């Protein structure tokens, strides 16, 4: 019995090393100007702020990921994006799984307060995230997502709540 206890204690102690490494890396990223991979970054501070007319978002078809920051809380993350019918969309998958809901908290935060800043190629844009839960437009958005990424997002998945889709609309 004593050996089992000791083995468990040793295993847990050794497990503390990678856990510490992950916590340290995640904590360090919080102080950075933007995210890296999966860890949230700090506010997007550098880069020219776009003013003027609405951009032609078709250029994002060549952009694999964008940086997005919510105003509340002021944390940024790297996410996929797609353009459809001249509008810009962002989304979050895995929302139907427990791990996904724990991992991706920004969609819930964005639904509460959609004010966001996105940074693409070093240029920042002020946006308002508006969730789209149903409608025919989801057929087109899902097709745009699937044609750009190895994703299985469908209108049915969005309407079932497995994926949360937001339009990154202009902010008033």
């Amino acid at each position, binding site marked *: 019995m004593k050996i089992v206890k*000791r083995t468990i204690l*040793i295993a847990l*102690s*050794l497990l*503390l*090393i990678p856990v*510490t*490494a*992950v916590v*340290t*890396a*995640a904590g*360090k*990223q919080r102080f950075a100007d933007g995210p*890296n*991979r*999966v*860890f949230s970054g700090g506010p997007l501070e550098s880069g020219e702020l776009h003013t003027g007319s609405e951009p032609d978002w078709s250029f994002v078809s060549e952009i694999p990921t964008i940086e997005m920051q919510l105003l509340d809380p002021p944390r940024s993350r790297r996410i996929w994006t797609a353009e459809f019918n001249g509008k810009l969309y962002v989304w979050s998958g*895995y929302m139907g*799984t427990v*791990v*996904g809901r724990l*991992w991706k908290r920004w969609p819930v935060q964005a639904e509460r307060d959609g004010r966001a800043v996105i940074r693409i190629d070093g240029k920042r844009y002020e946006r308002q995230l508006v969730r789209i839960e149903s409608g025919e437009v989801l057929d087109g958005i899902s097709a745009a997502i699937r044609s750009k990424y190895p994703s299985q997002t469908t209108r049915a998945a969005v309407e079932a709540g497995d994926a949360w889709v937001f339009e990154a609309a202009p902010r008033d």
Partner: protein
Amino acid sequence: MQYFYRFIAVALIVTVVVVAFVPGVDDLVEQIFQRYLGRAAR
């Protein structure tokens, strides 16, 4: 066991210092974490 706990304590301090201050180590940690997180979420 006392020596083992000392080893763990030193290892934890070294881990924090290396991840926080050695360039590229934080990115490597994040890369590995991303791999496991992606698998777990599926």
